[in-house]
């Protein structure tokens, strides 16, 4: 190999190395901090091609600038109305100032450790100010959850400002009672259910009684209406009969009296009757002597 060839290869190798040591790309998803002998000197937040002094004078550190969610540990808090609750929250955060970030928390795990402390303490403070009934409630007016979470996000941001971090959102993933309180909650739920069951049954009986009473009432009304009508009809019948009798008997009351008397005699005089007949009575006029 000639000297020239060797030189050419050497130049290419050095050139390639130099390109790698001086130029660097910044992706859309990252921020880059240029450090000089370990001290951060500038941040590159726009994606594209950049250059720096070659290593080891200046080197770079890359930070993901995307939003990240993570789960701090579950924690137990006390609400204003002295109820124990278990809470699992998750902050959604991102790096906004990579230099501050590098200086204060160094890396993502450092940041998450701080975040988890800060959010947790803010949660503790916030829960102390709110009743549980204003965090879980069917009454929309009482609902203060959003207000509380916004407050936590705001206060936490105040504290992480210096870390070059922005908390976009803090949300509750779990909000429940601690294990030991669950039993009493279940007890209450059971009692409540039993109450409802009893209510249903007694409501049922009540409704049923009402329906029966209504039916009985209807029965009485129907029958009495029928009685009324029947009596009216009977009255009409009787009246008609009286009128008809009267009209006829009017024609000769004397004859009627005579006839009716005869009928009456026939009826009321039976074999238990003893008739005492004087011989001078009209009936026996001819009994004593045929001649008058």
């Amino acid at each position, binding site marked *: 190999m000639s000297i020239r060839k060797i030189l050419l290869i050497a130049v290419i190798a050095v050139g390639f190395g130099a390109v790698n040591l001086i130029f660097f790309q910044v992706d859309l998803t990252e921020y880059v901090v240029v450090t000089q002998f370990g001290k951060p000197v500038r941040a590159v937040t726009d994606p594209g091609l950049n250059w720096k002094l070659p290593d080891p004078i200046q080197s770079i550190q890359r930070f993901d600038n995307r939003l990240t969610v993570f789960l701090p540990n579950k924690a137990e808090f006390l609400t204003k109305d002295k109820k124990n609750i278990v809470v699992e929250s998750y902050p959604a955060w991102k790096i906004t100032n990579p230099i501050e970030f590098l200086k204060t928390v160094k890396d993502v795990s450092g940041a998450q450790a701080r975040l988890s402390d800060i959010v947790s303490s803010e949660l503790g403070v916030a829960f102390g100010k709110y009743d549980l009934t204003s965090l879980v409630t069917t009454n929309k007016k009482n609902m203060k959850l959003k207000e509380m979470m916004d407050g936590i996000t705001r206060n936490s941001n105040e504290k992480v400002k210096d870390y070059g971090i922005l908390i976009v959102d803090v949300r509750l993933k779990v909000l429940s009672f601690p294990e030991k309180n669950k039993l009493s909650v279940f007890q209450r739920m059971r009692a409540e259910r039993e109450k409802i069951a009893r209510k249903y049954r007694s409501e049922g009986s009540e409704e049923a009684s009402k329906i029966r009473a209504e039916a009985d009432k209807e*029965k009485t009304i129907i029958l009495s209406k029928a009685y009324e009508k*029947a009596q009216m009809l009977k009255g009409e019948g009787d009246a008609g009969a009286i009128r008809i009798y009267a009209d006829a008997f009017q024609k000769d009351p004397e004859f009627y009296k005579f006839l009716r008397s005869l009928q009456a005699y026939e009826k009321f*005089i039976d074999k238990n009757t003893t008739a005492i007949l004087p011989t001078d009575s009209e009936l026996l006029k001819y009994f004593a002597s045929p001649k008058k």
Partner: protein
Amino acid sequence: MFMNRKEKALVITICANFFLIALKFILAGMSGSLALKAGAWHSFSDIFISGMVLVGLVLSRREDLSQSKGISRIENIVSILVSFFILYIGYEIFQEVIKGGERIVSQVPIVIAGAVLTIIISYFMARYKIFVGKETNSPSLVADGYHSMVDMYSSIIVVVGLTGYLVGLKNMDKLAAVIIVILIGLAAVEIFTSSFQALRKGGVSDTTHTSLHIKALETYLRPIKFFILPILIVIYFASGIYVVKWDQVGIEKRFGRPIETQVASGIHYRLPWPMGQVDLVNTANINAVETEPALMLTGDENLIEVNTSAHYFIENAINYRYRVKNSDELIRYAIESATRQIVGQVDIDSLLTTEKEGIIAQIKRLTQEILDRTLSGIRLSSIQLLQAVPPQDVINTFREVASAWEDRATYLNEAIAYQNEIVPASRGKAAEIIAEAIGYKNQKVNHATGEAQNFLDRLKEYKKATDVTQTRMYLETIEKILAKTDKLIVDSRIDIGSTDLWFVRGQNAEKILEGVK
């Protein structure tokens, strides 16, 4: 068996070649590199040519054997068959190359080291054969040496291909494989022609003249040296060609900065590595995610076990890819958080029964709100409430409520049945009463009318003979009456006022009368 120097050299190199083939196959198996596989087969063709040379040498040394055409004929026919076999292998590998799909080559650095070793072995083998061939004036051995030289080149091509792969030119390995396949083809053609000619002329096959071919090929190929660089450059730039599939959106970046954010499906070009990059995001797919069942507090402070699932798609590829790092976790947390919040606003009964639809809609709205707030680029297509049940500890009382509700219905049904029975019955009774009254009325009137008519008829006749009729009627009646009564006829001279009359009637009459006696 006695061997001269030439034969010894061939036997040694054949053994070395076996080792070479084994090494190449092992490396190919380890990495999955197509170029290495092709190289191994090329070495195989090489070993065969060496074998042919060896046979030729042995036969030429022993005149008696060389005369027997039978053996050399068999040898030539076998050679032709082998040439076809080698050609077929070349075709197979070529097929594998075209089949497409990203070929993943693993353990590249180690494999490169192995391939470099094969280059060295091939090099020394070739030098050794050429050296011995020249010393002993054997053109066929020299020719075989050149074959081994070609095998060395094939190994160099393998190394170049793998190195290209290592720096990101993923297709370099395949390209190397294609070149080696061409070399395999050449070797096959060579074996075929020499054997075919020998068969036609008679006698042993002579690979010497083919070594002349190779020399001629080399002189032809020499100018190619000047093209190697341009070709490599073309290949390098061609590596910028990329494909966006129908369900994807491509985002093209230059030095990390996006320059085209909506690359549609099809074939496109970007600057080659390391200047240009492309991110592909699946936007057409509907993805599903499901939460673990969890106990949640309802608005009336009951606990209920809930889990939900969501279907979503990527609406904004840029946001999805570049705004959120762990989107999968984000969406799961978001659903869980939204579900929890909405469950915390409703009472347990509406969650269990009537208002599920509305609740699901609210969860979806809130989840989308959370996802939008974080600019996740995700759009929910639907949310399902997979499960909303009371916890195991209390489920029995919930069932008890359900049966109480049934009981309630039973009570009501019984009462309604009573009502349905008694009201019509009363109506029937009423109708009966009224009918009876109507009957009574008619009876009364009819009786009266009848009796009145009877009276009037009788009156009419009576009027005609008042006195006698009256007497007749009187007497008839009296007769009938007095017929059944006890009668006491008293003479009108007896003063009834001063007479005591005792009437004893009834059952005791006999006794009393006896007593009186």
